[in-house]
């Protein structure tokens, strides 16, 4: 394994969830840029290229996460994106990335329900970064 420090962009409007995720990911050795809104995430994307991004679905608007996926992929098609949300179980809106059709729509590499254990998230990130 190389000694490269990977940069992870983390966007979530719940400050505590954001803090906890950032804390865990830093512990796992990532450099974390944590922001609380779609607007801030867009600013970060315009200035730097992360190695991976984790976006919450609903921030300023209900589809902030989708928009961020599009924008990130437009600028950096090769950067993996994880879309995280807690909404599916409650609203019954389910979408996965298993069908081709959903993949066309959702420009994310992985879709995660919130509440995932930090170790598990670390594992998923490593898989996406191929490390």
């Amino acid at each position, binding site marked *: 394994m190389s000694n490269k420090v990977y940069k992870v962009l983390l966007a979530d*409007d*719940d*400050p*505590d*969830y954001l*803090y*906890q995720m950032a*804390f865990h990911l830093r*512990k796992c050795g990532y450099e974390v840029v944590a922001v*609380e*809104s779609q607007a801030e995430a867009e600013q970060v994307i315009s200035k730097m290229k992360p190695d991976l991004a984790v976006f919450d679905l609903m*921030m*300023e608007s209900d589809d902030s996460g989708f*928009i961020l996926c*599009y924008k990130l992929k*437009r600028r950096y098609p090769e950067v993996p994106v994880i879309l995280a949300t*807690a*909404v599916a179980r*409650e*609203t*019954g809106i389910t979408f996965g990335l298993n069908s081709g*059709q959903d993949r*066309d*729509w959702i420009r994310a590499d992985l879709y995660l329900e*919130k*509440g995932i254990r930090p170790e598990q998230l670390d594992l998923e990130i490593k898989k996406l970064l191929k490390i």
Partner: protein
Amino acid sequence: MAQLKVLVVDDEPGIRSGVARILRSFHVTYPFMDENYTYEVLEAATGEEGIEIIDREKPDILLLDNKLPGIQGVEVLEYVKKKNYDIVVAMITSYASLDVALKAHDDGAIDFIPKPFTPQELKASIEQITKQQYLRRITHKLKVEGKKVRFQFLSVLSHELKAPLNAVEGYLQMMQERQMGDSISEYSSAIDRSLQRIEGMRNLIMDLLDFTKVSFERQVEKLQDVDMKELASLAVVTVSPYAIHKDIHFIKNIKACEKIWADPNDFEIILNNLVSNAVKYNRTGGTVTITVDCKDDEFIISVEDTGIGMNPDERAMLFEEFSRIKNDKTRNIGGSGLGLSIVKKVVELYHGVINVESIPDKGSVFTVIIPRIQVTNIKTEL
């Protein structure tokens, strides 16, 4: 057997006849549906012609090319949206550009069928669209019956209740696993945040109780003569610990009005919410002006602050349930996002209106106007 009308708007004749051919013998079944769906295909070569057919035939499904000789596909889509037609739209195009895709998505296009497509691809999309159309009509029906609204409310509510639980749970796990070291002092911010989230949750539950009271417990017996002056003073007392902390100064400008025939709880809700918001979103050392006035035909309550204000976009979503304005200035202000939607509901029970004027960084004025003639005729249900 039900038939859905599919309109194909594409300047390539081959695409139009291809769609017609593929769908002629195609039908869709769905476990929940009472019957099979078959398709009648209508064709238009231009957007203009498409609009004509849309107005005349009211198709169920629209397959829309974006690149057309006259007006573009997205403009047809805008037209459909503007007219509020019950049509499911799919764009037959590749992702020509992200902007078009996003715009089309915003205007309600639910699918993209990449061109060229195979019969299988078209059939898969049409099947998907048919199901969506079916579900959309069912949800529309439910919405009319008010069920959908309740469902949405509950789903957002459960999200809002779970978020603080998750946050507190996360911090407790960090403590349990000693992730920040063995000293309790390392965890002080985690503890503070947990307590804040619990406080927020408590406020949400309180608001929720108000909300259910307003929504479900209308009782004519509770109506009585209500003294607005008294309630205004009460609201100031309730919020005063916080106001003192923020050094907020109150100006009460209350005319000696006749009493209003109402449920005192309702006006307590109105005043408490408006006054506490005026303190919460104020600057330190700011002022809150409470005015109660009565004209021949209406009561007017207005609460003015010298706080952070709002821009028009933020104002537009203000009274929606669970909508909280999120920006740098509101980041550290807690709230359930229910308060003003409750106020609006209560005001409407009395056939009144609530208005807001606001200038960013100067402040906001909330004005409630309750017609006097209507006060005898209070709605008992929402």
